[in-house]
């Protein structure tokens, strides 16, 4: 395996977005980000100024989420939130797309919503969270194209609060859609170095995870056996397996589950592992 521990660390946005986050937790993740030289810390707006101060003399970026986690704020609020975050020291903003508008095919609103954040972000990079678990494939592709047209720097799979996390399938679809010139960030449910490497292999160049330390530390096991990376059963990584009627629109859930019935690997669809 050519990937080094250091290179893996530099793909990680060290993330803490829970409501109960105390300042001591922000201090901890910033210290860890410096220790491991992660790409960024990914945090809520209220913590940006503190993190920016802690990281001011480093190349670890401060990444702030915008319109998080629902993406349902007005464009004006998202733009203001972006300006405020950048003023407080954010180098990157991860905005949640207007998911409802995307599902309504109100593409002008989706595009302008993103453009507003891109414009407000100045030199900061903008990543657009699609929340893939609420979308079918054509909607994901459209979301990617609109993000690219609106001048965003990255597309990102999920918030981690939605119905699904990142899957290699979605990362591959997004990479194929946006091409080489735009970033793809996988986020949500990435807990091990095996998860991380699968996402990178699928085309991600940034990973959002709260398990950054474990991923990098555990990656030191990789050199002692090739068996860690042995291929898993296809269903394990399939978005259809994560589909959940309680959390998804009915038609989206059904769309995912119908794919199982025509899947060539359906015999492996055993939910006991």
């Amino acid at each position, binding site marked *: 395996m050519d990937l080094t521990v250091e290179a893996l660390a530099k793909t990680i946005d060290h993330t803490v977005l829970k409501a109960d986050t105390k300042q001591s937790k922000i201090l901890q993740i910033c210290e860890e980000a410096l220790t491991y030289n992660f790409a960024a810390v990914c945090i809520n707006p209220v913590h940006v100024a503190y993190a920016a101060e802690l990281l001011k003399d480093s190349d670890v970026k401060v990444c702030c989420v915008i319109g998080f986690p629902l993406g349902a704020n007005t464009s004006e609020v998202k733009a203001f939130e972006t300006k405020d975050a950048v003023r407080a020291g954010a180098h990157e903003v991860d905005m949640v797309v207007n998911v409802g508008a995307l599902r309504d095919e109100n593409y002008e609103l989706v595009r302008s919503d993103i453009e507003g954040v891109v414009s407000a972000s100045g030199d900061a990079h903008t990543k657009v969270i699609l929340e893939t678990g609420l979308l079918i494939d054509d909607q994901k592709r459209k979301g990617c194209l609109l993000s690219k047209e609106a001048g965003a720097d990255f597309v990102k799979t999920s918030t981690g609060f939605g119905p699904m996390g990142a899957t290699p399938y979605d990362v591959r679809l997004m990479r194929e859609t946006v091409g080489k010139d735009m970033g793809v960030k996988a986020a949500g449910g990435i807990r091990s170095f095996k998860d991380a490497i699968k996402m990178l292999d699928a085309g991600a160049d940034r990973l959002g995870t709260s398990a950054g330390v474990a991923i990098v530390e555990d990656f030191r096991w990789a050199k*002692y056996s090739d*068996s860690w990376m042995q291929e898993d059963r296809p269903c394990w990584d399939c978005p259809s397996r994560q589909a959940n009627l309680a959390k998804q629109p009915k038609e989206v859930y059904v769309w995912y589950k119908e794919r199982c019935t025509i899947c060539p690997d359906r015999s492996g669809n055993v939910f006991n592992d």
Partner: protein
Amino acid sequence: MMSDTPLPYIESKILRVSLTENKTTTEPIPDDLYRNYLGGRGLGVKILYDTLSPKVDALSPENLLIFAIGPLTAMPVPTAGRLEVITKSPLTGTIFDSNVGGYIGAQLRRAGYAAIIFEGSSPTPVYLWINDEQVEIRDASKVWGKDVYETTDMLLGETDPKAQVACIGPGGENKVKLAAIMTDKHRAAGRGGVGAVMGSKNLKAVVVKGTGSVGVDDKDRLTEAVKRARHLIKKNAVTDKSLPIYGTSVLVNVTNEFGMLPTHNFQEGTFNDAVGVSGEKLLERLLVGRYNCFGCPIGCGRISRVGDQEVGGPEYETIWAFGPQCGINDLEWITLANHECNLLGLDTISVGSTIGCVMELYQRGKIDASMKFGSTEGLIDLIRDIGHARGLGAELGEGSRAFAEKNGAPELAMHAKGLEIPAYDPRGAQGHALGYATSNRGGCHLRSYLIGPEILGSPVRVDRDNPRGKADLVILYQNLSAAMDSMILCRFTNFAWTVDDYAEFLAAGTGLPVNGRDILEIGERIYNLERMFNNREGLSAKDDQLPPRFFSPLPEGNSRGRVVHLNEMLAEYYSLRGWDKEGQPSKDRIKRLKIDA
């Protein structure tokens, strides 16, 4: 950095105790023994291999009983206070080591000893009292016949309340092959009948008080390594949450959910009342405190209240052994059965598993003694009879293999190489199954704990039902475990640490210039030498087997329909190990590992 001064660990001595001659002597540790085998398990294995004649009766004076600590013992490295007991097992006939926590390991190191070798047999009961440099073999007639708790209290009263005691109970005195050696009353070097070996030597206890300091090669480097390691323990969900909050019994619900909580002597893999005997229920109903071994920030040990007693435990494997294995759902009773075993100095896994075997023998009409799954009636008395080698208890004290064979149903004993298989049905995890079959000490879950990756997803999840690639992981874990048992550090740390962390501790603490691959090579050397010992005793590939039950599908639950694919994995395992078809290390492998046999 490699210091010019002798390695600190080398300053510790080997204490040789001739029980036959009532004499003690000390000797230095040969430098190459330390460098090639570290200490603990490795040191004991090397000494046993070099000293014991093949086919020695494990309960004869010719057998050796070795207590050994490791080069990291009593350093500020988390969990570095454990003790290894190494001997030839009367239960399995294999080489055997049993690892125990508590505090006695650190005291032994501070007294200046790396190991104690007990030779021969005393004509009368004795105990060894080590008070730093002073060593005495003392009369133990007053405590002979006493249980573990009484013995511990009486010997501390007779020596020093600040000392630590490792002792046997009636089980060891009566040479019961399921007897343990107990420290701090309820911590057990449990498996393989090491307590019986101690009893066969008329050695009731070892009492140690050590007050010396322990040298460190590079204090700053070790401090940094320890700081990092503690941080990793805090970051890990298993070591920071599951184990401290629920203890090892957090696994009851987990293995049940995976359909591999052995129930009714491994006839099923799910237990209807699992929740009632789970770690969560233990926390709600009985727990009064946690127990941390020396230098341990995890604290998986439990202190429970039953009636008016506060008792140690129970651990996951014990809950399983007296619970689902026997079809029993009474958590209070399980806790009392555990305590009874601690008083008697018995291995809870083998005792519970053997009782479960007897219950199935009764279920299938093979024996007359009324022993029904699910009934606790008379079982505490039976456990006492096992400890005192009385009646049916005396027969069960020989272990499930001997008892099932005697009653015409050897297939109903759930063992590997004579050691009862613990609380994970191997049909639910292929790699773990291979670990059971190839363990040098028999059915042991700790030689290669593939439950980590296969069930808990640590460090990554691997497909538990896929035999491919498992041999490689089993070998990695077996080699690392051998090295860890030689340093000595607790197995639970490798949820949070990697091979490289162990190497860093060793390098910083002792000056031994090692990296992760060196550590694994030392472990491989130890594992192969153990194998050579067993080969010399007549064990071969035919013994790397599992009971026939595991080649029939589980009838229900989330491992339903699964069987162990052992032969497929064994072929790959032997090939990767460099062993021939009989399971013997090749000359090339022995040479590469520099095993001076």
